[in-house]
């Protein structure tokens, strides 16, 4: 018959046409930098195993202009990752009930931010010796 459904193909730049979708791809994109930083850490472990001298070169590389630039970019994306990750935590866990009432999403998100601050402080203290 005359029925002829038209399928509009997904726009090749669908994620650039919509703020929400763009932020999604940026959120996912953060993983490139998270991954990159894991590689940097892996490198550090290799150097550590190779001995004091190798470790010193590693630290120097971290502090080089290139090293700093790369890491600052990584930091920005990692922070964006953290914020977006905490933002969805209430959806990603079963509702927690306190006296029969579910804990509000805002409280759960706030709890994660507090944990973030505490752990970050702990990391810095441990590394600082």
């Amino acid at each position, binding site marked *: 018959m005359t029925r002829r459904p038209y399928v509009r193909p997904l726009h090749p730049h669908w994620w650039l046409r919509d703020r929400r979708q763009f932020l999604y791809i940026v959120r996912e994109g953060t993983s490139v930098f998270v991954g990159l930083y*894991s590689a940097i850490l892996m490198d550090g472990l290799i150097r550590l195993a190779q001995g004091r001298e190798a470790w010193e070169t590693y630290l120097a590389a971290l502090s080089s202009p290139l090293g700093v630039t790369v890491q600052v970019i990584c930091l920005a994306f990692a922070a964006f990752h953290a914020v977006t990750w905490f933002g969805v935590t209430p959806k990603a866990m079963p509702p927690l009930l306190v006296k029969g009432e579910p804990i509000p999403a805002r409280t759960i998100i706030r709890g994660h931010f507090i944990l973030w601050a505490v752990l970050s402080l702990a990391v810095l203290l441990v*590394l600082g010796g």
Partner: protein
Amino acid sequence: MTKSNEPFVWMPFGAGGMVAALVTPALILATGVLLPLGLLDLSYDHIRALAAGWIGKLIILTLVALPAWHAAHRIQATAHDLGWGGGLGLKRVCYGTATFVAAVSLIALLKL
């Protein structure tokens, strides 16, 4: 319909996302900002000492390997989203790299 084995990759992905969110920013802050500024001293002895015990090794491995896995999972998924291949090949490359990062880190830690 057969059930998917996705939990095998998804659970470490989720854990990695949590680690990357809670701890990674502080680590980058330390190595990428405070260290170059001279506000933090990551001396060889101190760091070695941190990695000396079993618990230390385990924690460090977690901090390196899980975010790597998290990244691998997201990268292959996003590539699929953007229509860049995203087939089995890419999956192998991504998860393979993450496994490699984990394995090398483990060997390095064991050598300490």
